C-alpha cells in the first residue's frame, strides 16, 4: 500500500500548494485592488478611527471631525454646509470623498509625506494620530454673497485675487448639504443621495470648474486682447460695424443683439464696439485677425491649455475646431463651439486686472499640522502672460467703459470704478447670462466671473448685479 500512500502524500502537498498559491494571489497580487474596493469599508473605518483634519476658511472651520459614541469614532461636520459644499465636497461612508475632501485627502487623513515625522512621533508617544488642516483661500463674505446671489438659479461664481490667483469665492448652485452625505447612517445617506439623483440638475456637480458653457460676448475681451496685441489696433481704431454681417462663404447673416445697428455710420471704434458689445464688429475683427491670433490669445489666457488642478481638477475650456472663416466669425463672439468654465472666465478678467499677467488659481492657502504649525504655504505662481501691461491698460479702459457707459451699468459700485464685460450666450434653452470684471479698475483687488445658466435675460441684467454684490462685499471687507 506504500506506493499509493506516497502518491496521496504528494497529492496533499499539491492541494496545499494550491491553497498557498491562491492566498498569495489574493494577498499580494490582488491586495491593492481588494483593499481599495469601494465596498471594502475596512480602510474607511480605519480612517474614521483617527481625527481627520479640518478645512478652514477665513479663520473658521467649514469642515471638521467631532468625536462620537458610535463605532466610527469621528463624525464629519460641515458648518454652513450648503454654502461651502462646492469646495469642501463630502466625506461619505457610502459614496467616498468628493472635491477638497478627495483632492486634499492625504493631508486631511494624515497620510501626506509632509506629516510623516509627526505621525512617526505619534507612533512612539502613543498619541492618537490626527490629520492636518487645509486652510482655504476663500473669503467667507465673498463666498456667502456669491451663494446668496445665485439663490434660486442654476449658476456659478468664481472670484479671484488677480495679483496672486487665490480663489476668494467659488459658488455653484443648486447646492446640497454635505452633512447628510457624511453621516454614519448608510440608509439615510442613500435616501438623501436618491433625492439628489431625482433632481433635474445634480447639485453635487461643481459648475464653477466642472461644467463648460458658451461664453457669448465675454469672449470679445479675448478677441480685443488679440487685436490690441497685434499692434495694428488701439481702442480708438475705427472698425467696420455693419447692421448685419453675411458670414464669408455662407448666406447666413449675423445680426446684432436685438437686430439693431451698432452705429448709424456702420463703423465705430474698438472701444465703442466693446462698450455696446457689437456682434458684427467683433465677428469681422476676428476674421480679420485670423484664427491663429485668436487661438494663440485664447491659449495664453488658459483656454485649451493643460488641465488645472487647484487642487480640485478643473475641466478644460475649449475653442473647438474652427474650420472656416464663418466659424471663426461666430467663435469671435463666443458662440459656435467655444466653451468656458466659469473659472476660466474669471481668469480672463484676472489677467487683465493684473497688468496682463495670469496667476495660477489656487484654493489652498496653507497646510497645517494638527498642532496648527504651518507646514506648507502656497506661493503664488505665474501661469502665463497673455498681454503686455500696456494692452492690459487699454483693455481696462475699454472694460471700464462697458460698466460706465455700456451693457454692464448694473455692476457699478459707488466709490469704486469697475471694469467688466457682459455676455448673453445663445444655447438650446433660454440664454446664458455672464459677467466678468474686476474692481477697483485702477488698483484691482478682486476679479469675478458670474454665470447664470438659462437666465433668460442679458448678462447685464442678471449677472452684473451679482458680480457687483460680490465685489462690493470683498472691498468692504478689505476696508476699501
Amino acid at each position: 500500500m506504500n506506493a499509493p500512500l506516497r502518491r496521496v502524500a504528494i497529492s496533499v502537498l499539491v492541494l496545499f500548494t494550491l491553497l498557498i498559491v491562491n492566498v498569495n494571489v489574493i494577498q499580494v497580487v490582488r491586495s491593492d485592488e481588494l483593499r481599495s474596493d469601494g465596498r471594502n469599508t475596512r480602510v474607511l473605518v480605519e480612517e474614521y478611527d483617527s481625527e481627520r483634519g479640518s478645512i478652514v476658511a477665513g479663520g473658521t472651520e467649514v469642515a471638521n471631525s467631532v468625536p462620537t459614541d458610535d463605532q466610527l469614532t469621528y463624525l464629519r461636520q460641515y458648518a454652513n454646509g450648503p454654502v461651502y459644499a462646492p469646495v469642501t465636497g463630502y466625506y461619505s461612508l457610502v459614496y467616498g470623498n468628493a472635491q477638497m475632501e478627495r483632492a486634499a485627502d492625504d493631508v486631511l487623513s494624515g497620510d501626506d509625506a509632509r506629516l510623516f515625522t509627526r505621525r512617526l512621533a505619534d507612533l512612539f508617544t502613543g498619541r492618537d494620530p490626527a490629520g492636518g488642516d487645509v486652510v482655504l483661500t476663500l473669503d467667507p463674505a465673498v463666498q456667502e454673497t456669491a451663494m446668496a446671489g445665485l439663490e434660486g438659479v442654476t449658476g456659478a461664481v468664481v472670484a479671484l485675487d488677480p495679483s496672486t490667483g487665490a480663489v476668494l469665492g467659488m459658488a455653484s448652485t443648486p447646492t446640497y448639504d454635505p452633512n447628510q452625505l457624511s453621516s454614519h447612517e448608510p440608509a439615510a445617506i442613500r435616501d438623501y443621495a436618491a433625492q439628489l439623483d431625482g433632481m433635474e440638475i445634480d447639485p453635487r456637480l461643481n459648475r464653477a470648474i466642472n461644467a463648460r458653457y458658451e461664453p457669448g460676448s465675454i469672449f470679445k475681451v479675448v478677441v480685443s486682447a488679440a487685436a490690441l496685441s497685434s499692434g495694428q489696433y488701439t481702442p480708438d481704431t475705427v472698425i467696420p460695424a455693419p447692421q448685419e454681417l453675411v458670414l464669408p462663404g455662407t448666406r447666413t447673416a449675423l445680426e446684432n443683439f436685438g437686430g439693431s445697428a451698432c452705429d448709424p455710420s456702420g463703423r465705430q471704434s474698438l472701444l465703442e464696439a466693446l462698450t455696446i458689445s457689437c456682434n458684427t464688429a467683433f465677428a469681422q475683427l476676428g476674421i480679420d485677425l485670423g484664427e491663429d491670433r485668436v487661438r494663440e490669445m485664447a491659449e495664453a489666457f488658459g483656454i485649451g491649455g493643460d488641465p488645472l488642478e487647484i487642487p480640485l481638477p478643473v475641466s478644460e475650456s475649449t475653442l473647438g475646431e474652427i474650420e472656416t472663416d464663418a466659424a471663426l466669425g461666430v467663435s469671435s463672439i463666443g458662440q459656435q463651439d467655444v466653451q468656458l468654465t466659469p473659472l476660466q472666465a474669471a481668469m480672463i478678467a484676472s489677467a487683465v486686472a493684473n497688468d496682463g499677467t495670469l496667476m495660477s488659481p489656487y484654493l489652498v492657502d496653507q497646510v497645517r499640522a494638527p498642532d496648527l504649525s504651518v507646514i506648507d504655504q502656497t506661493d503664488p505662481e505665474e501661469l502665463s502672460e497673455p498681454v503686455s501691461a500696456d494692452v492690459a491698460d487699454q483693455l481696462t479702459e475699454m472694460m471700464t467703459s462697458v460698466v460706465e457707459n455700456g451693457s454692464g451699468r448694473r455692476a457699478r459700485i459707488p466709490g469704486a470704478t469697475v471694469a467688466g464685460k457682459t455676455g448673453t450666450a445663445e444655447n438650446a434653452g433660454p440664454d446664458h447670462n455672464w459677467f466678468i470684471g474686476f474692481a477697483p479698475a485702477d488698483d484691482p483687488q478682486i476679479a469675478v466671473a458670474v454665470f447664470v445658466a438659462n437666465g433668460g435675460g442679458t448678462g447685464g441684467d442678471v449677472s452684473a448685479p451679482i458680480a457687483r454684490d460680490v465685489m462690493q462685499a470683498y472691498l468692504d471687507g478689505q476696508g476699501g
Partner: protein
Amino acid sequence: MTSGPTTDPRAAAPGAANPPKRRNTELALLGFAVLITLVAQAIVDLTVTGSLTTELATFGVWFAALWTVAHLVVRRWAPYADPLLLPAVALLVGLGLSFIHRLDLAAQQADSALSREDAPVQLVWATLGLVLFVGVLLVLRDHRLLSRFAYTLALVGLVLLAIPALLPSSLSEVNGAKIWIRVAGFSIQPGEFAKICLTVFFAAYLVDKRDVLALASRRVMGLELPRGRDLGPVLVAWGLSILVLVFERDLGSSLLLFGIFVVMLYVATERASWLLIGLGLFAGGALVAYQLFGHVQQRVDSWLDPFEYYDGSGFQVAQALFGLGTGGLFGAGLGGGRPDQVPVAKSDFIAAAVGEELGLFGLVAVIIVYLVLVERGLRTSLICRDAFGKLLAAGLSFAIAWQVFVVLGGVTGLLPLTGLTTPFLAYGGSSLVANFVLVAVLVRISDAARRPAAPTGPPKPALGDAPTEVVQT
C-alpha cells in the same frame, strides 16, 4: 518537568536498540506552542482593550496544564508516538482560541451590552477534547482493537449522520444546514464524529475486502477496471453522500465522506481506476445536484463571482477576500484589523481572520502547520506494520487534509463554500472534540508504528486476547 518512568532520552541514543522516542522534542515544541498562544492573547488584549487582565493568567495556566497532561499521558502510554502531532494540534488550538477571543472583544466593542464570550466556552470544549484524548489513549491500548468494532462503528456513524435528517428542523437546522442536534442549549454536530466512525469502518472493511476489490476484469484504455459486481461498496458510499446532501443540505460532509472513502479505496487496492470511477461518480453527482438543488446552484454562482452576488450569497466570501487583501503580506496585526466584518468569522471563516490580521505570512504558516500534521500522519501510515493501522492512519490524515483544503479553499474563493469547519482552529465544540479523538487514534497508531518490533516479544495481534487487554486497563 517530571518525566514518566519509561522515559530516558539517552536510552534513545544512536546505535541503541531502541529508536529515539523524541518525547523531549515534543515537550519543547509544546512549550513553544503554548508560548506563542499566550503572546498572541496578550497582544490581542493590549491592542484591543489596552490592558492585560488576570483572565489571561488563568487562561495561561489552564492552557499550559492541558498540554502538560496530554504530554505526560503520551509519555507514559504512547512513548513512541510521533512528537510533532501533539504540538501541531496545540498550536492550532491555541491560535484558534486567540482569534476567537479577539472576535469576542470586537463583538463587545460593537455592542457593549453583549457579555457573551465564546473563547472560554471553546476552552472548555478543548478540555473535554483532551479528556477524550486521554481516554482514548488509556482505553485503546492497541489500535487493531478498533477493527473488531468496525461494523458497530459503521452503524453508530450512520445513525449519527442520520439523526439531524430525522429530527425536526427546529432541533437540527442552523443557517439552512440540517446537520445539528440541538438539545438544552448545546449544539452538537454529529457528522464530525460520524467521520471518524466511518473512517474506522472503511479501514477495516477495505483491509478485509481489498483483494477482491483489487481484482481487475478488463483493461480499457490502459486502465484495469474492476468487475461490475465489485462496484457495490463505492456505490453505497456515493449514495450515502448523496443522501446526506439531499436530506441535510450538507455539501461539506458529503464531499468529505466520499473523498475519504475513494482515497482509502485507492490506497487499499492500489488501483488508480477507483480514483477515476470515484471522480466520475462525483462529477455526475455534482452535476445532478447543481441541476436539482437551489442551494448548490447558489453556492456555485457565488463562488464563480462573489462580487456579483455581493448583496446576497457572495457577501461572506467577498468580505473574506476584502479582509485578506487588506491584510496583505504582513497583516493588520493582531487586534488591528476588522475580521468581525466577515459574518461567522469565529467558525467557518476564522482563516480569513488569520489572514487579515497575521497577513500572508501568518496564514501560510497556519497552512504549513496543517501540512506538517497531515504529512506526519501519512508518514505514520507509511511505517505502520499492520494493514488496518496503515489504512486507518491514511484515512484519518487524509480526512484532515481534505477538510482543510475544502474549508480554506472555500474561504479563499478557490472552491465553492461547503460549511465545514476548520479543524482545531474554528469555534465549535463537536468539531474540536471529534478532532481530538481523531488525533488520539493517530497518536496511538504512530506509537505502534514507531515502537521497536521485537525486544519485548511478539505480541501477536491475537484478536481473541483483545478483550482481556481492555479489562486490564
